[in-house]
């Protein structure tokens, strides 16, 4: 998908990938591919998350202790996947990032679309 660049697609802002991953895991444990698909689907393919950049990010988050990983097989399968889940520290981090992001989005919006008093 990164080969045919489409104009509507936007590059992920620096540092937001971590937040998106944490947010995704809030819904429950998932492995790398599931996270990638989820991000892709929920943003209607607008956000260009290169799957490859997901893994360094996952390992970085694991090292920071925000997520934990475990090899597990889904119920009806033999194959084991590396499932990531949110840790309490990760939840806290997510909340912090979220509020930061909200403030920033609001600030940007107020510059871009000033509310005209009528």
């Amino acid at each position, binding site marked *: *998908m*990164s*080969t045919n660049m489409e104009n509507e697609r936007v590059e992920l802002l620096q540092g937001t990938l971590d937040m998106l991953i944490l947010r995704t895991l809030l819904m429950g444990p998932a*492995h*790398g*591919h599931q996270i*990638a698909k989820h991000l892709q689907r929920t943003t209607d393919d607008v956000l260009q998350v*290169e*799957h*490859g*950049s997901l*893994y*360094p990010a996952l*390992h*970085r988050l694991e*090292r920071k202790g925000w997520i934990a990983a475990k*090899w597990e097989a889904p119920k009806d399968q033999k*194959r084991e*996947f*590396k499932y990531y889940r949110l840790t309490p520290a990760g939840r806290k981090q997510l909340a912090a990032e979220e509020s930061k992001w909200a403030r920033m989005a609001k600030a940007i919006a107020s510059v871009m679309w000033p509310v005209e008093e009528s």
Partner: protein
Amino acid sequence: MFDRRKREEELERELRNHLDLEAEEHGGDTWAARRALGNVGRIQEETRESWGYRWLDRLAQDLRYGVRVLAKNRSFAAVAIVTAALGMGANTAIFSVIDAVLLHPLPYRDADRLVSPVAVRSDGPLQENVADYQYAAWRDEAKVFDGVAAYSVLRYTVTGAGDPEELRVGIVTPGFLRLLGVSPAMGRDLTAADAAPRGGTVALISHALWTRRFQADPAILSRGLTMQGKPYTIAGVLPRGFEFPENLDVNVLVAMTEPEAQERSVVYFYRSLARLKPGVPVSRAVSDVAVIDQRLREANPRKLWARTDLVGLHDRLVGNVRPALVVLAGAVALVLLIVCVNISNLLLARALARQKEIAVRIALGAGRARVFRQLMTEGLLLALAGGIGGLAVAVAGVRLLRAIAPEGVPHIDNAHVGGVVLAFNFAIAVGAGILFGLAPLRSASRLDPETALKQASRSASGARQHRRLEGLLVVAETAFALMLLAGAGLLLRTFAGLTAIAPGFQPENVVTARVSLPYWKYKTPDRQRAFVDELLARTAGGPGVEAAGAVAVLPYGGWMLKGQLRVEGRPPEASGADEADVSINYTAGDYFRAMGVRVIEGRAIDPSDTAGRPPVAVINQALANRYFPGRSPIGARVQLERMPRVEVVGVIANVKQGGLASEAGMEMFQAAPQLKGFGAATSIAVRSTADPRVVLPWLRAQITAMDHDLPPAEVETMRQRMAALMNTQVFVMRLLLLFAGIAIALAAIGIYSVLAYSVERRTHEIGIRMALGARRGHIVGMVVGRGFLLASAGAALGIIGSLAVTRYLKSLLYGVTPHDPVTLAAGCAVVVAVALVAAYLPARKAVDQDAAATLRAE
């Protein structure tokens, strides 16, 4: 590392899973899946970075690169590693000796609480013996001690099964082993029931004696031991590695009765040991003992008493070798510093040659830190390789040190490469590695990639700072070399001084033998005298023998009986300490002629002074000066306590009994045949023109032939006896000379390589100068001049350094001060001369090159 491999595998599995699932979505199109995922190699690389192993990867890379660089410069690497190995090996070897001798605790329980009482007189050396009642008072009254013990060491002759031999026997109070915290490995400890006033007949034997003489017989406790012709029972065997708290090989312990506190007419003197109670500082114990001493002094006002000091047992046993070892440690450290400087210099030169490479790497975005790390890694690599080589050098070095060390260095046989010593070796390798890297690092840190790259291929003038650094290193190593040379020079002069001391006799061609005649076989002085007379008679016919005689105590022969001298017609002097300081010696046969003692006035005692003739004496100059100042003592009648009255017939030169450099004491000789009731003079001196290699075994054979039961006599030349007195100085001198030699060779190599390199860099410039008509002499002068300048600066610094450190040599020196200007000047001369030679070679090379060819070389 395992952890890491597991992570790698897991990451691979994780990515494979992803690819598989993605491919399923794309209907089995694995290529589409790969495109979606991106560059797997890069993902792995980036993920790895998040693991924090990055530094390890970098280190591996640096190491690989370093090995490649060194492999490409084999001769450079070889020189660097070999010199580093020598430097570190020497340090490790000396350290292993220091570890064994100075740092290891003594093999006793809580050995740091053991102290030795010593008597300190304001005017004299330490006296380690204490009076029996003084010891007993400490034992009964001192509250600072957990216990005290007294002992003395005697030589006993062991006979019975096996060859007769002389062993050192410790006569100890029954609590001796308990005080040390040692118990026998077999059998039982000595008790009060085993004790007798001069030693009981129940013995503990050493592990060594048990294995050697009794073949480790497990039934040893039922066997006996014959010493001095008396039967002893064996109560037990001491543990292996037990050490008597003296620097002596003591193989048997017997118990003596605890001395009584009551003062008697005969006072015995013993060595003693005390164990401080936990937490009691030495200073408090000293003042406690002083209080007890004071009470004793008041009870016996007639006695002149010295102050008692308590010396840590460890200090007392190793104190005399500490200065020598400290000096050697300092010397090897200097050698290692020089090695570091030299290698640093080589690396610096190479860093300059690689300036462009480094500039390119920095320009291409390599972080400076990364480049520094690379340079450091190379230095460390060299140092570690040197360290490993150094271990081999150290093993050989320890063996050498043990072989050439003077006798009586305690525990030196325990010195080996292992444990702490290995850690030390590793530590100095790392330290040296950092030192190696520093200079090139400094030069690289100044590097501006732009100018470095802009410079023409011949980067001649840009290296001024570099040249200064290089010069500094050469100056430093020259200074270090001079310091070592100064130390070696001072000891050389000490050696020369000691050798040149007029000993008062002529030691050349004199062979001596110390015979010990066991009193249980030679019970009366007459029996002993008969033995000596016969030995002298036999000796007279020996190879090349000119004269033979016997004496009680040979020069430097040890302890002598002392007494008060009374001169007839002169009132006895008021009681004073030095009244008792006349040493009593006696001779038989033609001793004075055999020893070549210089007669100053009158005559010496000779074989004509037999028992029936008027008794005579010969006094030494010190005695003559003290008792007969300004007049001739010949004909004076004198008498020593409990000795017959004798007539002085001669004055002889002083012999410094206490050692080569000691003050001569007063000494009086009498004729042994005229002394009734005194033991025989059993040290033999033989003057012979024959080769000592013939005379020594011949004399030994004569003694054995006369009595097979005698322990082997100590037979050696007088020169050997005297050489033994200088053992420590000679040992330190030899090693310092060796180190100084290495140092000066390294410094010369340093100067040579710096100048050779600078000549090489300036080939072009020199070519132009020569083409323009510069004279050869001028060019040579230019190069040699720089060498001279560097060496002189080094010498100046070295003088300052020497003045600062040679005082540590003080206790080893004789006849020369630590700041001896002649030695320093000679050292400077040697350093500068070597530097000039080292500088001349590259200078020759510079002017010998073909000017036209060098100009074309660019």
